[in-house]
């Protein structure tokens, strides 16, 4: 097991290098000047000073080499646009908030999505099933920005129950995390329903039933546990998505997280922020996948043998 984890960790190095290289090349391909922030033309002298300051006047392989060296030492470089801050500052201050938002959203998804799926599967084609699947469809279909705007309008402006935006008290965190959690919630509900129905048809469930086990025990020990494997598989990339793909939710609810930087940094051609965040994202996804693979071995003994 340990050898397996170490092997996987070593593999992340070339993957991250490849990610850096591809992002770097893509950034070089987009037109646009990071130092021209408005329609105002940038005088040649100013442009030159900025390029010199941020080493953009060096050949690309030198820039790439320096960047990789920086990442190796944990230095993601200065932001080209936020002049008082480095990418490390941005990550250190903003990233924990996005993780918090993502985890809370994930919490909503697990808390509401999984039970909805279970209930629907236990009574297929019943009212419970249709109700759960209706909400799942709606949750899946409604775009974040619509849900967010409606929630703010009704819950905050009209009824005055919760603050409109911000990220200070727990009350501030309810609406954004719920909005962000809606899609994974709907996804989990459908996924759990599907796999549960499949598991319920398995021979070992029939055997368990035949030997007289109580239904509740069959469901919790045999059915649910085996049905959760695809959920765990889906969870890892989903977790990456909700931590980093929260741009719209963060923007509308004014959550000072990192999601918005994924988009604004590209528009602003803030190369170092784009690179830094991409590296970070890829590391998260790699780690999340690793965690999932380890969880598999806990949930499904059959996968244990193939790996050791």
């Amino acid at each position: 097991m340990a050898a397996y984890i170490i092997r996987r960790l070593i593999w992340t190095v070339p993957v991250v290098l490849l990610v850096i290289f591809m992002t770097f090349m893509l950034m070089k391909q987009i037109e646009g000047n990071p130092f021209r922030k408005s329609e105002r033309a940038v005088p040649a002298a100013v442009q030159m000073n900025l390029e010199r300051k941020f080493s953009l006047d060096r050949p690309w392989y030198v820039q790439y080499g320096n960047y990789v060296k920086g990442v190796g030492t944990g230095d993601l470089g200065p932001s080209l646009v936020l002049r008082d801050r480095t990418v490390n500052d941005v990550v250190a201050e903003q990233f924990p908030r996005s993780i918090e938002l993502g985890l809370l959203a994930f919490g909503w998804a697990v808390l509401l999505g999984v039970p909805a799926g279970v209930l629907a599967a236990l009574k297929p084609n019943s009212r419970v099933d249709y109700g759960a699947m209706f909400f799942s469809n709606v949750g899946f279909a409604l775009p974040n920005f619509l849900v967010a705007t409606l929630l703010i309008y009704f819950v905050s402006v009209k009824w005055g129950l919760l603050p409109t935006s911000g990220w200070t008290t727990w009350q501030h965190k309810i609406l954004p995390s719920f909005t962000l959690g809606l899609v994974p919630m709907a996804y989990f509900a459908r996924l759990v329903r599907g796999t549960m129905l499949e598991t319920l048809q398995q021979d070992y469930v029939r055997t368990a039933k035949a030997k007289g086990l109580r239904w509740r025990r069959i469901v919790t020990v045999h059915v649910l546990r085996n049905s959760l494997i695809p959920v765990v598989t889906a969870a890892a990339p989903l977790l990456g998505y909700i931590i980093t793909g929260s741009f719209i939710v963060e923007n509308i609810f004014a959550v000072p997280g990192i999601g918005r930087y994924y988009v604004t940094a590209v528009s602003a051609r803030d190369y170092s922020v784009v690179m830094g965040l991409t590296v970070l994202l890829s590391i998260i996804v790699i780690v999340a996948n690793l965690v999932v693979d380890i969880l598999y071995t806990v949930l499904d003994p059959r996968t244990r043998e193939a790996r050791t």
Partner: protein
Amino acid sequence: MRLRIPVLLAAAAVVAAATVAAGCGGGGEKEKAGSGGQKAASQVLKMAWGAEPPSLDPGLATDTTSSNVLLNMMDPLVRLGPDLQPVPALAESWDVDGKVVTFHLRDDGRWTNGDPVTAHDFEYSWKRTLDPKLAADYAYQLYGIVGAEAYNNAKPAHAAALRDKVGVKALDDRTLQVTLTSAQPWFVQQAAHHSFLAVHEPTVERYGAKWTEPQNIVTNGPFKLAGWKHDASITLVKNADWRSADKVALDRVEGRIIVDGTTRVQAFEAGEVDALDGGGLPPADMPRLKELPEYEKYPALGTYYYGFNLKNIPDVDQRRAMAFAIDRQSIIDNVAQADQIPASGMVPKGMPGFETIEQHFLPPRADLDRAKEFMAKADDPKQKITLFYNDAPGHKEIAVAVQAMWKELGIDTTIKAQEFAQYLEFLGPPPNDAVYVYRLGWIADYGDPMNFLELWTSKSGNNNSRFADPAYDRLIEQARNTPNDEQRYEIYRQAEAMLTGPRGQLPIAPIYWYTYTNLERESVQDTFQINPLDQFDLSKVVIEEA
């Protein structure tokens, strides 16, 4: 500059507007709180800022939000009066002698650590902004000073020598002498821009790029930076030791950073904030918001225009026809909706000298008869053209409206959007050959028409039209050396005529002059004022009893 909101969010704004409009009945009559209301016991202003300030270093800041935070934390040499004329601030007076401007500083300016504010601070700060090593985006704001451009352009080896040649010198603690490259009669006004603020040398040298963090920063203005949670909040508190602190009513300004326009409006409507920073209201919400008693609008110095690529539309009569076919008032009423003013020229209304400069040629309403006459006179008019704009909220709707208006002239217009940074590269100058017409705007840096008219000189980096006329360049050069206002305005009139007058070349068709729209609680409406350069002075704000 403000951060741009993606299209998706514009869509959100539309949805929001629809839902909100459906939810509320029409607003009541607009009633202003009577002036001279009672001062409220609590002087804490809650406001929403539209962006995270990219930098609170006066040398590095380039955007409106940073600028407004800075101008309330720092003491500029001069501030701008209601007519944009400079009024004394830290400088109690100044003398102008040809190209030499001498500022006389008050003796009671203090940094928040107790150090006196001296002329040496300004000399240090301006030279620091010009230092090629700092690489300040707005270093060029200081290029009017002798030797400034040369120093900013210096190779590292020559920098030290050129630094001493920059024409800014502290003659003593209270006298700052500035030598300009030409008379530049607007220079004193320009000193109200945040690029001309002083920074505290020991603090900057000690903390480097981190000197603007709240635990390090040393300022010298009416408010102090008590907290700055990046992307979340900015808290300002009254600086009790400021030279005129007895005139400042507000004890605290609790600012939240809310980038999304619709959310800002909702935070206001939920009573969480009392004023917005004037960054504009979502166009889709405008019809409803305009009816609110908290709605305020202010004239702005800015021009929204369509530029022509003279290579692709070479005939001036066709450009005249196209400019005459645009129904500016209709665009304002039905599309832009923020009570903008139909633009007849490049220099916006409200600019000093406007009455002299204004050309009465381009009409506010479409004049199709004359447009068709011009079109008939055009030699080989282009019937298939392409109009480019940047993909930000509002521009597409205007482009679609103009497309329909030009259809009346038999012109088939294809409209194309581009992402902003790419768009700017695409426009050059010189512009890409695919461009026939392009959209841009210009917001003033300072209150002199020069700031708008110098754009159209042949060497200007902001002239994307290929318009180049040596006679025009000469006029602009002449204006730079004409200190007398009336004479200079007359020169500007001639320049404006060459652009948008009856015999002008019309490298642009101006659409509208900007306004700033805002929401302000009635308790602060009397004293919260935004000037035409988008600045607001919180030291003048008083919260009145509701």
